[in-house]
C-alpha cells in the first residue's frame, strides 16, 4: 500500500474540461505596411465540442475538440501614388477674371485598393489527441549525454522564461507522452454542416417569424445538419481510429505534429517533484540559544520514492512513498 494516494475521477476531469473549453476564447489583431502595401488580420475564436475519455490502457483521449472562428479576417491593401490632372490658373488682364482649371485626382485614398474577406464560416479545425503520463527520475549527478537535443530545447525554453531551469538536486518528472495527434486544419464536415445549417435556418426564420412550427423545422434542420456532419466525418473517424489503433498519426502534417509533440513530451516535464521534498523550510531562529543569537536551522526534507501516475477507465491515480 502506498504512503500517499491522490485519485481524480474521470467524471471530475470531464466537468472541468467542459468549463475550461467554454471559458477559453482568444482574439488577436494587428496590421503592418510594407511601402505601398498594407496587411493585417483580426481573428477571434473559441472551442466547441470534444470530450475527455480515460482509457484502461493508461492513456487519456481528448476527442474531436473543435476550434471555431468567430472572425477570421485578413486585410490586404495597396496604396497607389496619387495622380492629379488639371489645376492651376491662367492670369488674365484686368478686368477679366483669372481662369482656373479644375483639378482631378485619382488614387487619393489610403489604401486605394483593399480587400478584407472574413473566412470564419469557411475555416474550422478539429483536434484529437491521445497521450499517457510517464514518470521519470531526474538524477542531477548524472552528466548530460554528449549529444543532448533535449538540453538544447530546454535551454531555449529556459532562456525564454517558459520553464524553470533544471535544478542541481534530484527530481521526479511527470511527462505527457502523446500516442497520436490528429489535427484537421480544415474540418470539412463541420464547415459544410455549418454552412447548410446556417443557410437553411436563415431561410426558415425569414419565412416563419415564430411559433412551434418554426421550432420544429429548425430542430429537423439541426438533425439533418448533424447527419451531414457525421456522414462527411466518416473518413476522418476512420483515420483517427487507425491512428489510435497503431499509436501513430497518419498524414504528413499529423506525423510532424506528433513528432514535435513527442519531442516536447519527452524533454519538458509537465510537473516536477523535488527529491528530497522540503517539508520545513530553513529558518533563522533566535529562540534556540539562550543568548538570542540567530541560528540558521537547516530545512527538513524527506525522500520521495516510487512516484507513479496511472490512468484506468474511471480515474487517474498518483501515488508515492516517503522514503526511510
Amino acid at each position, binding site marked *: 500500500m502506498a504512503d500517499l494516494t491522490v*485519485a*481524480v475521477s474521470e467524471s471530475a476531469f470531464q466537468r472541468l474540461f467542459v468549463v475550461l473549453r467554454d471559458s477559453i476564447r482568444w482574439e488577436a489583431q494587428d496590421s503592418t505596411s510594407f511601402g505601398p502595401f498594407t496587411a493585417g488580420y483580426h481573428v477571434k475564436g473559441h472551442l466547441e465540442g470534444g470530450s475527455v475519455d480515460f482509457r484502461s490502457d493508461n492513456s487519456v483521449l481528448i476527442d474531436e475538440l473543435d476550434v471555431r472562428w468567430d472572425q477570421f479576417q485578413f486585410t490586404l491593401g495597396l496604396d497607389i501614388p496619387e495622380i492629379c490632372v488639371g489645376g492651376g490658373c491662367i492670369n488674365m488682364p484686368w478686368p477679366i477674371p483669372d481662369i482656373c482649371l479644375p483639378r482631378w485626382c485619382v488614387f487619393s485614398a489610403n489604401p486605394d485598393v483593399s480587400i478584407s474577406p472574413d473566412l470564419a464560416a469557411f475555416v474550422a479545425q478539429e483536434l484529437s489527441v491521445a497521450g499517457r503520463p510517464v514518470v521519470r527520475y531526474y538524477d542531477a549527478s548524472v552528466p548530460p549525454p554528449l549529444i543532448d537535443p533535449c538540453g538544447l530545447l530546454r535551454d531555449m525554453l529556459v532562456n525564454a522564461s517558459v520553464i524553470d531551469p533544471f535544478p542541481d538536486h534530484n527530481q521526479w518528472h511527470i511527462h505527457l507522452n502523446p500516442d497520436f495527434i490528429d489535427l484537421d486544419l480544415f474540418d470539412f464536415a463541420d464547415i459544410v454542416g455549418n454552412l447548410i445549417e446556417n443557410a437553411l435556418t436563415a431561410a426558415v426564420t425569414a419565412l416563419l417569424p415564430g411559433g412551434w412550427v418554426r421550432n420544429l423545422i429548425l430542430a429537423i434542420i439541426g438533425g439533418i445538419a448533424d447527419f451531414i456532419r457525421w456522414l462527411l466525418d466518416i473518413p476522418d473517424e476512420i483515420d483517427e481510429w487507425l491512428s489510435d489503433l497503431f499509436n501513430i498519426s497518419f498524414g504528413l502534417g499529423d506525423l510532424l505534429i506528433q513528432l514535435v509533440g513527442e519531442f516536447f513530451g519527452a524533454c519538458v516535464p509537465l510537473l516536477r517533484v523535488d527529491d528530497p521534498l522540503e517539508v520545513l523550510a530553513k529558518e533563522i531562529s533566535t529562540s*534556540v540559544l539562550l543568548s538570542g*543569537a540567530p541560528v540558521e536551522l537547516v530545512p527538513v526534507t524527506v525522500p520521495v520514492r516510487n512516484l507513479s501516475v496511472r490512468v484506468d477507465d474511471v480515474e487517474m491515480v498518483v501515488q508515492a512513498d*516517503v522514503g526511510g
Partner: protein
Amino acid sequence: MPFTDHSDLFGAVHEDSINRLVRHIMRQRPSLFNYATPFFHNNLEMFCAKFEVDDKVLKAKNPLFTEQEPLPILGAPLPIGLNFCLQLSEAAIDFHPGNVFGLPPELGSLTAQRFALHLKGCMGMDCPTKEIINELLPHIERFLVSRQQLAAGETKEQVAGTFTHYTPPMAAVDNRDRERQRTIPLPTRQLICFCLELYAVGYFEWGTVPGSQQVWLKPRLDGLEIVDIEPRDMENAIECYLTTVLKLGILPRLIIPLEKMVLDISKEFQKMGLTLGRTVQLEPSAVPADVPNNPAVEDDQIKAFFKLTVTGGA
C-alpha cells in the same frame, strides 16, 4: 474498487508515512524535540534518551537542543539552579486497525474510525551531591547574613558580602544578555532520568456550533492514559486534568469550518490569467449523504473525499 467511486477527488495518507515523516523531522530539527541547559552541549551522552541526528545538522553546526535556563532552586538567595533536560523521544500515530503499537489495557482496543497517538517524554534532572551542598551552604549562609535576609530578623553583626553575579562569556554577543542576570547551574555529575508514556485515542466528527450556519469538522478525544505513575490517584488526577485540558482547552480550538476546506478552483485559474465562466469548487463530500465517513480512519490510513461542484453561468 476505484478510489473515487463515491467522490471526485480522493486523498489518503498511510500511518507509516506520517510516522516516518515525524522521525525525519526529529533527526533534522532535533531542537524541536529536545530542551536542555547549555551544560549538555559538552555532555550529549547524558541525555536521558539517545537521539539520532542527520549529518547535515552536524555539518551546519545547528544546535541539537533548545537551550533552557537551569531549573531554579526556589528560595535560594543566589541565582543558582540545576541542569536538566526534557525530551520528546517518541511520537507515533496508529490508524484503525491498531497495529503500530499496543494500547494500554485501560484504553482497550482501537475501534473502527479511531486513531491512537503515542508520545514518550523523558526528563533528566541533576541531583547535587552532599559534597556540593556542603560546599555551597557556607556561601549561602554568609550571603543571607550579609544581606540581613534571615527569618530571625536583623543581626547586629556586619558580615561582608560575596560575589553573586555571573558574567557571561564574550561569545554571547547580545548586550541585553550580558546585562541580564543568569542562573548559575550547579556542577553536574549524574542525572536522574525518568520517562513517561502517554497514549490517547481520538476520532473526527462533523457537527454544528451554536450560532453558526455551517458544519464543522471536530477532532474528539475518546480516552487518555499515562502509563504507570504512582500513586494511582495521582495518575488519575493528572490524566483527568490532561483530558479536561484537551477536551475543553485545546481540541475546541482545532475545529475547522467547512468554508476553510473549500478550494475555489475558479480563483486558482484566475490567478493563472484564465477567467472561468462558472464557479468551480472542490469541497469535502457530505457525511452521510455522499460517504459514510469523511475523513475516514481505516485501513491504516486517513482518507479524505472531495466533490467537484460547478455552479453558475451557462
